[in-house]
């Protein structure tokens, strides 16, 4: 077998060698580009799940699990602002808002049994008045309301913690076994708007059932007589005109999550 030493090896013409390498690189690049394009097409043509191609839903689910395990802690609190910094957020949509025929005067909060049917109030639902609810420890916070659209408004809220409500009333059933129910569902009084919370976020100390905004009782525009506010979720989860609440083993339906948004929407 003949071996050629490097010195006597035939030197390829550098220009031809370059042309060969360029061809090879372009072929490689074109293949990779086509593969990328194929992956992109595949990604966007998977079956839709609530307004999103399923791979996106799966990735949002992964982000949710990572957020819950690596970032979320009920001791993490949003920054509080001086009360003087508070202002009025815009009324950003009328989805689920009461219309003229809805009377707010005879409003009562319905506490339904765990695993109740969404949007179907029943005679067995436990009900309480605003005055009864207001006997729970009163909490005030001046925090940023953060809209998923990207704007924020500092607002002063007052009301009761959902956690205190859950401790006083049988949100998790007669045995009050919270760990059996990872989700909390909330609906407007007419069921037209509804949100789902993971239990940890619902029981976060800055998740309130608020009846007061900037020192005055809530107006109908802002969710009278009782609304939810939370610093651990975007404003889309801050349900106005709360009518019914229940714990659930299954993930409750969520108005905006059905229209392509992330179900978790956690901050």
């Amino acid at each position, binding site marked *: 077998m003949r071996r050629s030493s490097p010195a006597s090896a035939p030197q390829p013409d550098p220009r031809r060698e370059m042309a060969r*390498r360029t061809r090879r690189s372009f072929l490689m690049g074109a293949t990779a580009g086509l593969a990328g394009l194929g992956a992109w097409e595949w990604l966007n043509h998977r079956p839709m799940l609530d307004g999103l191609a399923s791979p996106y839903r799966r990735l949002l689910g992964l982000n949710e699990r990572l957020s819950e395990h690596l970032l979320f802690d009920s001791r993490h609190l949003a*920054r509080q602002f001086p009360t003087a910094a508070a202002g009025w957020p815009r009324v950003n949509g009328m989805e689920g808002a009461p219309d003229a025929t809805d009377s707010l005067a005879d409003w009562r909060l319905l506490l339904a049994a765990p695993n109740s049917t969404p949007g179907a109030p029943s005679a067995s639902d436990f009900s309480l008045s605003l005055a009864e609810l207001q006997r729970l420890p009163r909490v005030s916070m001046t925090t940023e309301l*953060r809209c*998923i659209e*990207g704007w924020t408004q500092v607002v002063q809220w007052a009301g009761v913690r959902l956690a205190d409500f859950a401790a006083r009333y049988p949100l998790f059933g007669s045995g009050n076994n919270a760990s059996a129910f990872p989700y909390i569902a909330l609906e407007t009084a007419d069921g037209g708007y509804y949100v789902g919370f993971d239990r940890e976020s619902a029981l976060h100390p800055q998740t309130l059932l608020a009846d007061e905004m900037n020192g005055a009782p809530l107006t109908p525009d802002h969710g009278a007589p009782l609304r939810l506010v939370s610093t651990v979720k975007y404003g889309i989860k801050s349900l106005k005109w709360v009518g019914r609440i229940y714990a659930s083993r299954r993930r409750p339906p969520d108005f905006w999550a059905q229209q392509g948004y992330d179900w978790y929407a956690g*901050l």
Partner: protein
Amino acid sequence: MSDVRLHAKHSRAVRWMHWVNLPLLTLMLWSGLLIYWANDVYRIGVGQLTLLHFFPDAVYARLHVNHRLAEGMALHFTLLWPFVLNGAAYCAFLAFSGEWRDLIPQKHTLHDAWRVVRHDLHLSSRPLPPADKYNGAQRLAYTAILLMGVFSVLSGLAIYKPTQLPWLASLLGGYPAARWEHFLFALGYLVFFVVHVMQVARAGWNNLRAMITGYELVPTTDPDPAPGGQP
């Protein structure tokens, strides 16, 4: 003996990461635009006078951006993974290969960069200062783009989980400020892109080919090529 020879310039890893980054960054900017549209409050102006609104309605109309917030968020929070992983791989590569030495600014970098800019804008007839793999202007630009990537991730994280990471948002001046900074970095990428492509076009095919094949042709008389002024 030929008058030219092949000179290895960019490693395979750098070339792959460079070209993979192109579609990823483009899609991050695109999905960012879909998100930004829902609250497009930034502008250049004084008092009531707005000189430039980000972005003019014609831009939205041309790109069909309107009412696609949910789609934008899903894309942004999906593609951030390959985008961040590719960026992290690049940082790791720079660290372990020692190529960070070609990139980080040195004592004369600022002075050199000024000379390169003046030369490239035809404001100075002085020749380009001697350079290693990258000249002063490139060192500044390529270090800046890396830091911008890091700050994009940090400001993004600050507006992604402001309640869980309140210290991060505070460090950046608060939640609204962090959003503004995140937007500013996005504009920064566009500016970088325009200048980068112009400089690549100026530098010519031999230089661009090196980012494709890894090699450039250099004169055989040149023992240690110093292609100053090439991106």
